[in-house]
């Protein structure tokens, strides 16, 4: 039997063209800001979160995942009325966890992808709750379980085709 000395991390590690690395999150941020004006129900979907998870699991580098998530989150903060850092921390943590989980599971599998996006959407909501309550002392911020479950499910629906499209742009390192 032939043994390989290449780790799973190295085998499944992908890279991206710098243009794609820059443009994909930017397009997601723009769509997230512009589309809900016409289709308000799209506010349930979090495109920047999905793209953070995609890049994190594809690169399988927790540092890259955390940095990508933080930058995207800070940009999101700029478009809202939240202080800078709220979405930055939440997306950074999600990017880190996504990259770490990417080592352990086959993230090319459809079911794993759905489970990953669903779970990480809820993780992001949890982190946002902790930030609002413990760091900002915002008593008006409430956990909305039903709304968060709907949001997580909507993210899964959008993530499946979006991952399939983005898969075409990845290159094996």
């Amino acid at each position, binding site marked *: 039997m032939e043994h390989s000395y290449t780790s799973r991390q190295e085998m499944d590690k992908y890279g991206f063209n710098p243009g794609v690395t820059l443009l994909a999150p930017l397009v997601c941020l723009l769509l997230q800001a512009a589309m809900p004006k016409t289709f308000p129900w799209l506010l349930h979907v979090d495109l920047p979160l999905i793209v953070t998870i995609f890049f994190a699991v594809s690169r399988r580098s927790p540092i890259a995942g955390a940095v990508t998530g933080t930058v995207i989150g800070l940009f999101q903060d700029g*478009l809202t009325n939240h202080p800078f850092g709220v979405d930055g921390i939440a997306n950074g943590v999600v990017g*880190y966890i996504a990259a770490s989980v990417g080592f352990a599971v086959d993230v090319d599998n459809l079911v794993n992808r759905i489970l990953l996006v669903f779970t990480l959407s809820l993780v992001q909501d949890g982190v946002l709750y902790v930030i609002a309550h413990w760091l*900002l002392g915002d008593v008006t911020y409430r956990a909305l379980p039903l709304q968060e479950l709907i949001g997580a499910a909507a993210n899964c629906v959008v993530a499946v085709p979006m991952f399939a499209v983005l898969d075409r742009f990845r290159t094996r390192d």
Partner: protein
Amino acid sequence: MESFFSRFKNPLVLIALVLLQVLALAVQVQRPGNGLDGGADGRRVAKLRGWSIAGVVPVERAMHGSSMKVRGVWENYVDLRDARRENAALKQDVDRLREEQAAFAEDAAQGRRLQALLGFKEQYVTSTVAAQVIGTSGSERSKVLTLDKGAADGLKPDDAVITPDGVVGKLRDVYPHSSQLLLLDDPTSGAGVILASTRIRGILRGTATGGVEINNLTADARIKPGEKVVTSGGDMVYPRGLPVGVIASIAPDPTHQPYTAIVVKPMANLARLEEVLVITGTSSTMTPGMAKDAAAAEQTAEANQKAADLSAERLPSLHADAPVTAGAVTGGVAGAPVVSDDAESQVGVVPGIPNSGLPKPKPVVHPDRFSVGAAGPADLLQPGGSASGLMRDDPTVAKPKADGQGGPQME
């Protein structure tokens, strides 16, 4: 030491990133004008936010422009199809509104006289800037919209934003060519309001669930669902008297006892805003245009009053000092002019003018051949013939019975 950093490189980087942002949050929260209370951000944070917005606005503007073109083509076609019918309906509306305006003009004039007597300073909206919504915050938790007008168009932070339906929010941050509109239903939003009929003052706030509530009032039996809510002017942001919404429900607030949670349904559809008006100027005196409109309305009201007086003089039944006959009394107090609300009991009634018609004859209790209608239709009558024969054949006329019932009775 080197092995520690290389071994825990990943978590250490994450911790460093999180710590940096926690510090940034702490700095932002501690400073006055931190934006958490719905006000504008500090100078540096506003600059950072301005960069983010500047990156997004051109694309949003382009997307908005192209979508408006596509929609415009379709809407022009639809509008043309219904233009004639809509035009007729609008003309009717204009006539009705003119009547209403004339009716309100006298009240308004009286209100202004009383305000002048009391030294009350009314705020009139003197200038507005129309702006289009081109984007959102992209977050469910942040009810912020991006407008296509900014400081270059005369907008300032805290300017009130309205639609023809009612108040929608205020400007938060204003950039040279764009601005952020903080909607009423954002949790950091607030407005001073007054309940229209009970005149109770309260503070309107957005909730975490995207609703709008007044939660600083204790239980009061006078507050009922359906009551209108208008701005009080006490917050120095929204001019007094602008419609905000109607009370949808009232319930005890379990997290905020002894206060009640009065849920308000905004007049404007906050989820579907396309165009808004930003109030850029108010004044304690009326603008020339408004004064002209008020004068025209007062003239119309006076003309209507004269016409009503003239009609009253010509119609004897409308005189207040006319003797009231027992047969004409349908209600009211003795000695007072009798006014019947039953429009069907009057002939030639003109809608909106009470007692404009003549009284209809009362139904006959015991009909005979001299009763109205007993003679039958004119085409059946013969010259020199008797009407009594017709009466006998007419089934609508009661015939005298053998026992004396149904016929004329002697009293």
